[in-house]
């Protein structure tokens, strides 16, 4: 916080006045933006920030420079990312020795350090700014717009970018019904996976009988392979708060809760800081913007349970109980947390609200498809060249996302499937790559939108093993309350374990299908109802792979241990003896500079030789 005196914001006018004062203060300052999101921080970006801070202190030559820690830019694969203003010059893969050069050349000299800018792997073209990089060019950023531009620990940054103007407008000049109407026009649907129309949920909660109401932000992003919400909470926490303030006013709630996953310590830190700052400035608390509306937000950390992403389980957890879902004969908008009407939305849903209020529902509805409006953030990960966060207008095809933005499958391998929707979703094969991505299309393909994980799989991925992975995940995470889920998932997993171990039987596939339908029809909550999706979708599109495992005892992707063997290619083997030395069971024989041989009777298929061979001479057959 740069100002010692805190100015309380009591009206839309004072917000505007305050923004003007920050504008004046920051005009003409050069800024070094260092990403400190989890991805870049893991690669040492915090140290870079310190080095830039030192460089600024030492140079002291009258130029005003501010090193700033910012949130995630999205292209985490190429971190740490550093951006220099003016010019928005983006540098990737920055290391400690580069700091001095960047400071001298770019910050002071205004010149580009070419070796650190993005280079197109095919054309070799250099991209100096984010907008020139193909990964960003095809995206449309609403929720992620300011991610990477602002310091998530400083409310002034958010206000400078126009933050809290939507809340000011909503609270001072709109009736609650008008806000809900605007959200209805926008066509916004819940980004947590279900896709329920947001305005309808708000309306029901507003109309539910009772004095009190709660709003909850679901930040329990549990789908493995998804980290959109983490990056939003870490990179732009005030957008989440502003969305909640507007929603709470529209619904008539005075208390909000943010439930954050235990595995996201940085998100908790940034949100906690943001809440404290918003309180200091009078944007949370009593009489916000001088109105008679009061609202407070509390953060709860999850305990580490996937099922708590389910609304009733999450509310049970907020009540200090085990996170077991309940049947929803009575909706949570009528009786939710502590029996009070409760409106729960996901992080990304809340973050969309300020833009909708500022630009109007019609603007939002002009983006996307007939049934799915606006944009959606995906975490594009797995065997793809450019992994990271992408925000695209609904309706873009899978091919455009994976190839145009993602740069295609990694290492020139063959595309096999893309998994969406987390453990409740499914695997979509090559022939549907041209399907447009929206809520309804993905469901038609036997998968679902989910919260936004998009995991690319290549030819080396065994689809039976993928199904087994998800069932194992769900077995661990099933809360155990209802029998079909608790026992059914275990039984299905048991069959898949047999198949991948080479003990599959005729009839296994049919039993899996039967159990899958049972789970879908009889489980209490969405976790159980959708638990069979990974199996059903892989059976639908990759049935042959199951059959090969069962009938030929072979794994076509050569992933399942025991269903393929290792052999040494005598042509490629240089006789370096590395595999021989590392083999834990001494199954490899051979002389130096002579091709080696694996004794299949001794080999335990541990794969050490495959990992160690520098010449790629160990083959899976």
């Amino acid at each position, binding site marked *: 916080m740069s100002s010692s005196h805190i100015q309380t914001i009591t009206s839309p006018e004072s917000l505007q006045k305050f923004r003007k004062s920050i504008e004046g203060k920051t005009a003409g300052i050069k800024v070094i933006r260092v990403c400190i999101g989890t991805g870049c921080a893991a690669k040492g970006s915090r140290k870079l920030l310190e080095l830039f801070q030192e460089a600024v202190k030492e140079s002291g030559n009258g130029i005003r420079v501010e090193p700033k820690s910012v949130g995630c830019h999205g292209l985490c694969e190429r971190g740490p990312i550093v951006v220099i203003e003016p010019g928005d010059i983006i540098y990737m893969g920055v290391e400690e020795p580069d700091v001095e050069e960047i400071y001298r050349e770019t910050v002071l000299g205004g010149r580009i350090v070419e070796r650190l800018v993005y280079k197109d792997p095919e054309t070799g073209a250099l991209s100096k700014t984010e907008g020139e990089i193909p990964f960003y060019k095809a995206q449309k950023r609403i929720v992620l717009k300011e991610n990477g531009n602002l310091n998530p620990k400083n409310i002034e940054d958010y206000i400078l970018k126009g933050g809290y103007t939507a809340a000011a407008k909503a609270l001072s000049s709109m009736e609650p019904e008008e806000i809900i109407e605007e959200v209805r026009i926008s066509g916004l649907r819940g980004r947590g996976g279900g896709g329920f129309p947001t305005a309808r949920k708000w309306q029901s909660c507003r109309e539910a009988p009772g004095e009190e109401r709660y709003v909850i932000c679901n930040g329990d*992003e549990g789908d*493995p392979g998804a980290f959109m919400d983490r990056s939003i909470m870490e990179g732009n926490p005030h957008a989440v708060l502003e969305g909640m303030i507007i929603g709470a006013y529209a619904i008539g709630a005075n208390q909000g809760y943010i439930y954050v996953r235990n595995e996201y310590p940085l998100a908790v830190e940034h949100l906690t800081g943001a809440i404290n700052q918003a309180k200091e400035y009078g944007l949370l608390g009593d009489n916000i913007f001088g109105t008679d509306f009061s609202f407070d937000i509390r953060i709860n950390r999850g*305990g*580490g349970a996937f099922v708590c992403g389910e609304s009733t389980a999450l509310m049970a957890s907020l009540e200090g*109980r085990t996170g077991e879902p309940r049947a929803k004969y009575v909706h949570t908008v009528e009786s939710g947390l502590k029996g009070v009407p409760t409106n729960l939305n996901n992080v990304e849903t809340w973050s969309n609200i300020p833009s909708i209020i500022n630009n109007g529902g019609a603007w939002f509805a002009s983006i996307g498809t007939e049934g799915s409006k606006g944009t959606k953030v995906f975490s594009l990960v797995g065997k793809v060249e450019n992994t990271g966060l992408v925000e695209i207008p609904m309706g873009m095809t899978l091919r455009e996302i994976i190839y145009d933005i993602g740069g295609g499958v990694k290492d020139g391998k063959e595309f096999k499937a893309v998994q969406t929707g987390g453990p409740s979703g499914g695997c979509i094969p090559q022939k549907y790559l041209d399907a447009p991505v929206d809520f309804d299309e993905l469901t038609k393909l036997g998968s679902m939108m989910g919260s936004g994980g998009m995991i690319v799989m290549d030819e080396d991925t065994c689809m039976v093993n993928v199904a087994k992975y998800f069932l194992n995940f769900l077995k661990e995470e099933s809360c155990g309350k209802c029998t079909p889920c608790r026992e059914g998932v275990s039984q299905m997993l048991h069959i898949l374990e047999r198949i991948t171990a080479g003990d599959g039987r005729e009839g296994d596939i049919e039993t899996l299908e039967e159990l899958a339908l049972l789970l879908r029809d009889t489980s209490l909550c969405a976790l159980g109802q959708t638990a069979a999706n990974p199996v059903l979708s892989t059976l639908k599109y990759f049935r042959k792979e199951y059959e090969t495992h069962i009938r030929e005892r072979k794994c076509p992707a050569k992933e399942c241990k025991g269903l393929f063997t290792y052999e040494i290619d005598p042509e490629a083997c240089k006789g370096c003896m590395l595999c021989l030395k590392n083999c834990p069971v001494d199954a490899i024989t051979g002389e130096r500079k002579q091709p080696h041989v694996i004794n299949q009777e001794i080999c335990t298929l541990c794969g050490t030789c495959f990992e160690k061979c520098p010449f790629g001479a160990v083959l899976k057959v």
Partner: protein
Amino acid sequence: MGEELILTVADRYERDEGMLIPMMQDIQKEMGYLPPEDLRRLSGVLEIPLVRIYGVATFYSSFRLAPKGQHDITLCMGTVCFLKGSGKISEAICNEFNVEPGATTEDRLFTMSAVNCVGACALAPVMIVDGQYHDHVTMDSAIKIIRGLKEEG
């Protein structure tokens, strides 16, 4: 110490039983785990049955009822890490150090946990050692990192 800690923690949340999970998180942060006698005290202070507290402690994966090792090793088993070999890495660590996911080594050097996605998929496979993220780990590099802890003592 124990008695005082429980009272402080309970009062921090105005003894609101809805805040049971944050209270237990605070106790664990202080003690490194949830000592049974502290849970018994908490049950007395909040006047809620011990069985409910025990249920919560065993339901959520972040709570532990046994003391931790000197270091914390968290291996991500999210989908992407899994696709990129975290299953094999976990196996290698377990074999090398004679430990199981969720357990602590005999010499109490480290506690190994395997978790479902830490949300750093661009770095997969990811291993977190005492809060520090290691990206793109392999069987070899993971074991080397852990051996390094041993040498540090």
